[in-house]
């Protein structure tokens, strides 16, 4: 028997850290107890049900779905703003819930958040310099001088003029505010930024500017993004891997090519067909799905999409479809998929 060539051993030791994803969700579930004093309902809202996902370093995971599908809750659990009811959120393999206070503090600076509404997410009484500096002050370990220099550098990187740093958020346009949000998120040099609908409130021209900036920063800093959006064109453009969510569950996931060229789930197909394409006269398939999103506190039995699915049968009401493999990294949970699964086996 031959010994392994030396470089393979080296390769293995290098491969070891990359094998642990930067961020992983393992069978994560989040329930909210419904109602307040006035509410009589007792069934909890099942915002996220048994979701498993991974984000590799330097890549973008896009989560797409309609309002109420649980995508924002998922994002908030990744940042640590919400704790899962069940399952684990792991940063570099370590469960957030099992971390010591010091570890959790450190991990907080590794995962930052960028919000949809740049008007609501910036403190109106702080100057831009102070807003961007704030996470650095919280983190500590830097002198005032060092912080100031870093704030200038962050402003330049995100396309803000240094002369603007003394201004207040109200003096800025929507696009500029979103640049401030990005600069603030970058301040603690995180490995992952959770971006919840970062460009939804912006005009098309400004949207392109922010998306360009996000792409540049990702390449420069080896950043990962968890991009949450209802906009398929944005997800298609920026995500390396996409997960489609419906009523708290992932119905399909895969690369942009896999999902857009050959979607397996009827919901994915319907989402793609609903994108209003800027091409006049292009024949638009009539929207196949009808009706409304069912209540998350009483989701349909079996497949949660069955009440709106054009292909649903009795089986779909009886049995929840498991995720099956449709290609390398391409999975969907459907009894009657649009394409043939690669294996009949169920993926755990």
């Amino acid at each position, binding site marked *: 028997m031959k010994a392994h060539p030396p470089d393979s051993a080296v390769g293995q030791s290098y491969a070891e850290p990359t094998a642990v994803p930067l961020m992983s969700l393992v069978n994560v579930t989040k329930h909210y107890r419904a109602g307040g004093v006035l509410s009589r309902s007792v069934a909890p809202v099942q915002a996220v049900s048994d979701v498993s996902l991974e984000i590799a370093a330097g890549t973008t995971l896009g989560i797409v779905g*309609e*309002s109420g599908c649980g995508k924002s809750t998922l994002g908030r659990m990744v940042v640590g703003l919400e704790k899962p009811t069940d399952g684990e959120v792991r940063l570099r393999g370590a469960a957030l819930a099992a971390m010591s206070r010091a570890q959790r503090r450190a991990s907080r600076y590794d995962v930052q958040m960028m919000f949809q509404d740049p008007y609501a997410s910036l403190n109106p009484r702080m100057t831009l310099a102070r807003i961007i500096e704030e996470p650095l002050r919280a983190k500590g370990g830097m002198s005032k001088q060092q912080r100031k220099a870093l704030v200038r550098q962050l402003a330049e990187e995100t*396309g803000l*003029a240094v002369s603007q740093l003394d201004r207040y958020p109200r003096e800025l*346009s*929507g*696009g500029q505010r979103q640049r401030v949000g990005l600069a603030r998120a970058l301040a603690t040099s995180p490995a992952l930024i959770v971006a919840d609908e970062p460009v939804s409130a912006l*005009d*098309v*021209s*400004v*949207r*392109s*500017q922010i*998306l*360009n*900036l996000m*792409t540049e920063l990702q390449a420069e800093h080896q950043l990962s993004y968890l991009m949450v959006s*209802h*906009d*398929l*064109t*944005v997800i*298609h*453009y*920026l995500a390396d891997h996409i997960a489609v969510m419906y009523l708290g569950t992932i119905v399909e996931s895969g690369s*942009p090519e896999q999902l*857009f060229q050959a979607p397996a789930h009827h919901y994915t197909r*319907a*989402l*793609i*067909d*609903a*994108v*209003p*394409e*800027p*091409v*006049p*006269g*292009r024949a*638009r398939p*009539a*929207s196949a*799905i*009808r*009706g*409304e*999103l069912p209540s998350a506190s009483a989701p349909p039995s079996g497949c949660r999409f069955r009440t709106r699915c054009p292909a649903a049968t009795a089986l779909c009401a009886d049995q929840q479809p498991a995720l099956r493999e449709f290609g390398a990294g391409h999975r969907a949970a459907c009894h009657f998929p649009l394409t043939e699964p690669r294996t009949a086996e169920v993926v755990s």
Partner: protein
Amino acid sequence: MSAPGTPVLQVTDLEVDIKLRRSVVHAVQGVTLKVGEGETVGIVGESGCGKSTLGLALAGLLPSNTAVRGSIRLADREVAGLRERELRRVRGTEVGIVFQDPMTSLNPTQRIGVQVGETLRVQSGASKAEARAAAADMLNLVGLPRPLEQLDRFPHELSGGMRQRVVIAAALVCHPRLLIADEPTTALDVTTQAQILELFGHLRETLGMATLLITHDMGVVAGHADRVFVMYAGREAETGDTAEIFDAPRHRYTAALLDSVLRLETPHKSELATIPGRPPDLTVSTAGCPFVPRCPAASGQCSTELPAISGEGDHHWRCFHPADQAEDNLSAAEAPR
């Protein structure tokens, strides 16, 4: 697709000034616009271009700190300068309005049936029973399931998409000739948006009303408008047949807007075309073309003189250096300063 005869809406040289404490915003500056019977005209532009103010002016809903000059003829009747009482009559019977957020248009404490039938009660003195019956018919027409049950529900009991259907029903209950829809689907999910847009098409066929569709979404315009009116800095930049505007835009602003739209075909993480800078401050009057600071083709003449409207047939633009039809659209891909 424009119908013969009198247009439903004829706007001529419309100006709207909004008086603020220390300044005046010239929100609409000399807009001339025509909407034919049964026609859908899309009004597009970035935020701050005056498109919503134009919509409010046409609906007679401007606040008291505004001054309106020019003419608005609705079905051959001048409505600019009408008093509030007369305007109220026009709204509802001649014009229906749908806004972006259905929750702001609906009264949260009133049952849906009452709200949808209200215009009919006020405008044509219908009895409670008549208004209720008409409301049920209308809810059925806009695709609300089990309309009779819905009459007694409150807005908060419905989803966003269903609420928007209720708003549309209320706007159309008196069968107005013109519907003004200001970003009617922006707050909705994609699949709901597709359903509401389908509904507009269906209602247009059934009721034959003309529609002014105000939106920032080029995709919505492409699929649903017969003609497009591109607004920039309170003025017309370009108007024309939807296909023509999308295939061969002549104004540089239209071209830049279309270039910066993200499409499903846009290559993954490729550098996107943008429009550098931002729309101008409308409190300041400028001599030349307002697009000059952001325009890739601007010359000296552009900053001293406002281009007149020129064009061929129904396709008009306000530009000294229109993009050639054969030429690839210039796209400016600089980062803003």
